């Protein structure tokens, strides 16, 4: 049972990441591979605030979001100059830079040693150190984020985003300043990713830079491409598949190290096969 709850918590965290990344990649058509950076910013915000200053967990979520918004605002402005695969390459660059900051800014992040001993949240006398309670908390946040994202996805704002995806120049002719729209959705998505990061830090009670490498961004991208671009239910489905699938490998009887690598093989092969046979993913509405 504990094991199932553990999987469910991981699923919920990745579903939050998937839903938020889908807003950028699926609806706006910007291939971003830097999501793990914002995820990491949220995780480190929670880790540092909870271990060093004794701020509450929920306050640390807000701080993480604010930092992610500030950073993504700056990154978004730089990225707005690029298009297509150059955009993707630029995001790879920012993921690498922010990973290097986690790794090397030792006074704040303790570098490769990581930050242990992050406490679990408490609210109204409910102790979330119990994994089941924690799961409920994450699911409540996931539900809230999912419905907020659905609201965004059905708004007139999002119709402009889809227009940008289909033909940016055409929508510019209609007088929309596409820079603001792209920047806005990028910042929103980064802020949501930071929330997922806060939950991750609090659940694992330990953060180190290796959780936020480029490969993590690729994994989140694989989730939304598998589930389907421009479909929020797809992202949740994708997270479910990619969290559960590797667990089957565990029962096949590989050793821990090999199972971890087999997981990477599976993700890689899934990406190739999807591109070859079903580029819109399981229930997607948009092809890359």
């Amino acid at each position: 049972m504990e094991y199932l709850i553990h999987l469910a918590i991981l699923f919920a965290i990745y579903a939050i990441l998937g839903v938020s990344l889908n807003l950028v990649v699926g609806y706006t058509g910007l291939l971003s591979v830097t999501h793990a950076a914002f995820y990491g910013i949220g995780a480190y915000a929670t880790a540092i605030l909870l271990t060093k200053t004794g701020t509450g967990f929920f306050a640390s979520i807000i701080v993480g979001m604010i930092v992610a918004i500030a950073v993504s605002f700056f990154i978004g402005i730089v990225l707005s100059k690029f298009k297509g695969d150059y955009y993707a390459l630029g995001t790879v660059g920012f993921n690498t830079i922010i990973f290097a900051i986690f790794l090397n800014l030792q006074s704040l992040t303790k570098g490769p040693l990581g930050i242990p001993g992050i406490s679990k949240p408490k609210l109204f006398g409910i102790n979330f150190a119990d994994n089941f309670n924690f799961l409920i908390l994450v699911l409540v946040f996931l539900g809230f984020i999912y419905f907020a994202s659905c609201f965004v996805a059905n708004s007139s704002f999002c119709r402009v985003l889809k227009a940008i995806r289909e033909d940016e120049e055409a929508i510019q002719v209609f007088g929309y300043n596409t820079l603001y729209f792209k920047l806005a959705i990028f910042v929103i998505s980064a802020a949501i990713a930071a929330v997922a990061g806060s939950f991750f830090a609090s659940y694992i009670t330990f953060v180190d830079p290796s959780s936020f490498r480029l490969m993590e961004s690729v994994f989140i991208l694989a989730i939304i491409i598998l589930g389907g671009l421009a479909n929020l239910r797809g992202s949740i489905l994708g997270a479910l598949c990619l969290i559960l699938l590797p667990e089957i490998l565990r029962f096949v009887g590989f050793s821990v190290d090999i199972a971890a690598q087999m997981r990477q093989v599976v993700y890689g092969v899934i990406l190739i096969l999807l591109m070859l046979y079903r580029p819109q993913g399981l229930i997607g509405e948009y092809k890359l």
Partner: protein
Amino acid sequence: MDILPQLIINSIIAGAIYTLIALGFNLIYGATKFFNLAHGVVVAIGGYSFFYFAKTLGLNIYVAVIIGVLLVGFVGYGLNKLVYLPLRKRKASNMVLLVASLGAFTALQAIIAILFTSQFKTLSHGVGIQRIFEFFCGVITQTQIIIILTAILVMVGLVLLLYKTHLGKAVRAISDDEEMARIVGINTNKVIGYTFFIGSAIAGLAGILVGFDTGIEPTMGLSLLLKGVIASIVGGIGNIYGGVLGAFLLGFVENFGIWKISGEWKDVIAFALLIVFLIFRPKGIMNK
């Protein structure tokens, strides 16, 4: 200060390694116009196949180098045949090809780790046995001299191939306009297959040389690939001379950058260079 000659030597060595990666990457990009991220894992396959043939099977070093390079060439050729060619026939967008190559990268890197474990291995026979030369108060090892010579040789060979042979003419024709090349009777898919073979073989050679200089690990490909990509873009993507120029510029900027700030920030410096170029001169130095 006698750190200056050493910095210059280090910059040239780094430039030579990046040259080898950028040459192959640029060749493939010129013919296919997409970012082949699997080029990075091909470098690692080169290092590991040499390791297998020379250390595990105990073959002669030169034989092992030749078999290793050929094997890597076939891996590149096979990737094109199995993944990229079907996608290109279906007129898939660059982003689809990019994601597919990312999938190939992830899967192959993990397969290497399964076969050879993820431990760091060195290819040379032992530390400290290498002959060391002194050069204006700077130090350079025998391997590093071989790296520089190989880079020059490969560059000259590639230029001769491109400008003096029929195959080279066909490659340049495809780089200019694939549609047109097909109309005048060039079997474009076959020629693109050859460029994958040659480009990957060069990358494999780079992997072996890096293995002799520092060592091999399954994750070595990513940072080398990114440096090669940065060099190509900075110099002018798809342009052979541009790639070489960019590689040496990157080598110098990186090594002189860490003169003042510590060495862990190398990747950040490299990506900062890329982003500056993408903003102010996106076509690179050589391309108009």
